[in-house]
């Protein structure tokens, strides 16, 4: 990361940290959701952007973290422990899933992940003893920290996720992940441990939504299977990363910011319209700007854009 990028990052963080001093609760809530989406987008970016393994089921880890957080809070654990454990439990669940599904290449992995979220929702609905099924879990306000704690925790998660991606991106690990994306067979040939690398990326990318889910439930104080495992969350994650720029550090931040602003202006009365618009945005980006908004900057500076080039077969 260059000095200028660091300066921009520091300015953004300082502005976000100072915001609760001046902004209304409504605007703080908006920012909290923005941080949430930045963290989730970075998580998707980490596995799908860097390795090229397209996950359509990452919302499942968000839901698992949210349920873990809700249950731990109910048992009287302090909120920060609920968040940490939310991340750890999501990571623990993701390890066997990754071990099985990451053996599959290309379309097979995408298909296997597509159903994960649905299955998680069915399990959460049927396992009534643990989750109270469809009626959901309400948390009493006495168990929950206030808005400002949620705000700063979510901010911290967004920063941590972005820093993690930045750190991976510039190091050997990131190089190996991109080698897997470009040509997995060749990467293996030159000695990249593809299995370990893919699995590490997958588990890390599941831990982030796990923590985010736990904070989300502290913020909303209510959870049911369809809010925990919302398909629209998958859509948003993917669109944001694609829009900003796949496999880049700043793309997901930019994408999350732009999509959230668009959503804010088209807001609540028309949820179907908003999702239809996200679908259209996804199409336009995939067809006409495959490197996302970041590729426009990169082209201007005569740098190679981070476009995925692996052949489909």
């Amino acid at each position: 990361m260059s000095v200028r990028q660091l300066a921009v990052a520091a300015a953004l963080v300082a502005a976000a940290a100072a915001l609760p001093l001046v902004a209304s609760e409504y605007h703080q809530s908006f920012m909290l959701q923005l941080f949430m989406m930045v963290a989730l987008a970075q998580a998707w970016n980490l596995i799908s952007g860097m390795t090229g393994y397209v996950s359509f089921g990452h919302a499942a880890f968000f839901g698992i973290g949210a349920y873990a957080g809700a249950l731990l809070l109910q048992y009287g654990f302090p909120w920060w422990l609920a968040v940490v454990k939310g991340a750890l439990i999501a990571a623990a669940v993701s390890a066997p899933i990754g071990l099985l599904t990451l053996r599959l290449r290309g379309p097979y992995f995408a298909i296997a992940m597509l159903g994960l979220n649905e299955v998680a929702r069915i399990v959460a609905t049927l396992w009534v003893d643990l989750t109270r099924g469809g009626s959901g879990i309400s948390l009493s306000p006495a168990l929950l920290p206030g808005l400002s704690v949620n705000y700063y925790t979510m901010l911290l998660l967004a920063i941590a996720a972005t820093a993690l991606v930045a750190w991976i991106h510039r190091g050997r690990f990131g190089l190996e992940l991109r080698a897997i994306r470009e040509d997995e067979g060749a990467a293996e040939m030159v000695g990249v441990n593809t299995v370990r690398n893919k699995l590490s990326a997958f588990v890390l990318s599941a831990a982030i939504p796990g923590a985010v889910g736990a904070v989300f439930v502290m913020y909303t104080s209510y959870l049911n299977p369809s809010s925990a495992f919302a398909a629209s969350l998958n859509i948003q994650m993917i669109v944001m990363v694609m829009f900003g720029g796949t496999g880049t550090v700043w793309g997901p931040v930019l994408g999350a910011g732009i999509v959230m602003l668009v959503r804010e202006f088209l807001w609540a009365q028309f949820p179907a319209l908003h999702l239809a618009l996200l679908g259209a945005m996804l199409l336009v980006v995939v067809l006409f700007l495959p490197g996302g908004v970041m590729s426009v900057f990169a082209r201007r500076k005569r740098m190679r854009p981070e476009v995925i080039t692996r052949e489909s077969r």
Partner: protein
Amino acid sequence: MQELLDPVVLGQLLIGGLLAGALYALLACGLNLVFGVMRIINIAHADLMLVGAFAAWVLFATLGLNPVVALALVVPAAFLFGYGLQAVLIERVVGRPLLASLLATYGVSILLVNLGLLIFGSDYKSVPVWQGSFVVGEFVIPKPRAAAGAVAVALALGVYFFLERTRLGKAMRAVSEHPHVATICGIDTRRIRMIAFGLAAAMAAAAGAMLSMIYSFSPLTSADFIQKCFAIIIIGGMGNFLGALYGGLLLGVVEAYVGGVLTTQWAEAVAYLLLVLVLLVRPTGLRGAADVR
């Protein structure tokens, strides 16, 4: 448990499973055709099915047309829709990395689902025609199910013979075998792709029109069906037309038995369990080519 060993009950479940499976097969064949010809996984395939279901519903609600009669309108319209979709959108991601085609068809899917919600809302619709059942010996077959199953089998076999026997069908298979050699032989691969996608959309819409007589549906119903479709083509082998037929029938029967023994919610999850099992044990499917992995 005892009654489940009764041959009449077993036979009844088998008939129900095969009839539902025929519809799955028709749907999955189109998905496999597209994958075979252009190596694209169309995530919006089940949404094309619902386009057919809603078209049948509209024709029934306004003109009182029976969905089987409505096929005469729905199928050609869906073919043109698919042809146009390929020409305008999908053609641009042919040969691009997997991520591009997956996300482009995902975008089409999101768009169709939410346009459906805007136009029709999320209430469930159904097309109540042909009350009553055929009684064959000790077995009872509801009339709409029998009609849907028969239409699905006829259409799937029709497309199969089209692929096997006609010149255009052979060209289509040639493109899916080897696009470059097909081009050298003078086949217009772009035109073949557009026809293939049109055909797939027509099959999906026909399945949807038949579905409208049997199930109640909303724009969100497609999520279950695309999952089942994927399970079917993975079980049968990706890109293999006959594989999708077998896989569809198999899934229908397994679902019927699981639904009979456990609950229908488990039947919903069965497709996914089968999918994961086959992916892990034999990713190329029952009849798939080894090179697709």
